[in-house]
């Protein structure tokens, strides 16, 4: 096993809730829903102008 400073450093970063949305799961869902909405919009855009 390595004896790098990495392994000696304290695991100091803690998980904390997001500033908006209540939970990380909500934020992840928002990003994925935004993607789904964009795909639908692009499809409608292609149909309307293509």
């Amino acid at each position, binding site marked *: *096993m*390595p004896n*790098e400073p*990495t*392994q000696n*450093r*304290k*695991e*100091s*970063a*803690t*998980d*904390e*809730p*997001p*500033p908006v949305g209540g939970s*990380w799961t909500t*934020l*992840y869902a*928002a*990003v*994925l829903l*935004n*993607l789904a909405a*964009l*795909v639908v919009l*692009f*499809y409608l*855009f*292609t149909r*309307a*102008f*293509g």
Partner: protein
Amino acid sequence: MRTLDWIVLLAAMAGIVAYGLWKGRRTRDLDDFLVADRRQRWHHVALSIMATQASAITFLSTPGQAFTDGMRFVQFYLGLPVAMVVLSITAVPIYQRLKVYTAYEYLEGRFDLKTRTLAAALFLVQRGLSTGVSIYAPSVILSVIMGWDIRVVILIIGASVMLYASLGGARAVDNANFLQFLIIMGGMIVAFVTLVRLLPADVSFLEATRVAGKLGRLNAIDFSFDIHNQYNFWSGLVGGCFLALSYFGTDQSQVQRYLTGESIAQSRLGLLFNGLVKVPMQFFILFIGATVFAFYQFTQPPVFFNPVEAEHARTGQHGAQFRAIESEYAAAFEAKRAAALGYVGALRSGDAAATETAAQTLKAAQERAGTVRAGAIEIVKEFDAKPSDANYVFLSFVTRYLPAGVVGLVLAAVFLASMSSTASEWSALAGTSVVDIQRRLVRRGAGDRYYFVSSKLATAFWGLFAVLFAQYAGHLGSLIEAVNRLGSLFYGTMLGIFLLAFYFKRVGGTAAFVGAVAGELVVLYCFFFTQVAYLWFNVIGALAVIAAALAVNPLTKRQK
């Protein structure tokens, strides 16, 4: 270039260098230099990530791509938001908790030294070579369109970046990236608004957009599946997701950006913001290209957008023929313009049959103009085996038609885009060289001050290497194309190694190493002996690494 353009361009560049130097003036140790003391807020992380990914070529080539091929390239980015979510869940907490300087540092703790060194070496080779191209590619376009000496353009970009990146490190780079990205997007928005105002007074923006759409430039989504097709929904979503996972999760030039976040939450928010806005941003840049296409349906474009190659053709062996084609192209354009106006008139009438007839006439006129242009391209082939003027379309339009001040702003955006991605690359290359190679393999335990100075020198070294590479890149011919493809050959393997590390806890170092070598061989086989579209290399490479490692793992355990 008018005086106002020079003022805007020079003020933007000098301002960024000064801002970078000022922000990096308090850089005192290795933590500061490599990860900005892990104090950055999410909006800095987000825009720095986006500025790193969006190179000058993004803003020069993407509109040209929409001009020539339509907007289907936007699908390339569809997998990115998914990757941002996966990395926020997986990579960010691991990297942040371990407080690593580089992504490869984590691999030694998880596997062993040889796997860490292999991953670091793959990054150094791939990114080290491509950083020269990052400067060279936009410099060629700028020098051709503006008539500037390419060596001077390369030197200006290189020297500007070297000043703040080698003195201020990641803190200077990230702060400069933040401001650069705001100026870049501001420049693109101003260019778009001005472009819309340049459309003919008797044709509305919506009507011009409909003309571009009828000629196949607004094809944003294609759900058909074809493994040989680079850009459709499936290759973008799956292949693009694997590429984004690899690029944002294993490429130190991106990992370093979110390692600067002051907490897991700040780093996550930076990535998720990128997941929210990256796709619309690319859509916008492509839409600028489609609007330039619409503009050129009513204003005559050059038959070939690279002015230097067009001039060679005009004065070369087949000059008379080229000039005759230019006259023929002018006549074909007039017919096409009349057809476009006829289509707009038919749209206004609301007569479906007349609109369909006008659309067919417009398409025929477009095809005729395309045939004439193809004749011109054949002549250009005499001195350029693969002539393509897509990269020159946008800047050619900007310098011909945009007003004073806006030209300077767009040029500033191109320079700043080149500087931001280059700065991140040099900073990451320096960090990997010092942390993963020098501190681990060459000189261990030398103290923070030693590695801090080494990092500064390493940044300068990579800057010098990139500038020299860019200066000689013009003589390297097809090697440049090879370097451009290098990333797609390594990313799958890199991702496979990290996926093993994150998700396959029973797999050991030797199995991961063997899997990586086997996966790379599979990717090279696909590259040389199949017609598989390159986005799929990332999927194939990653899965091959995992499969090979899982197969070998029991054998390595038995040996122990």
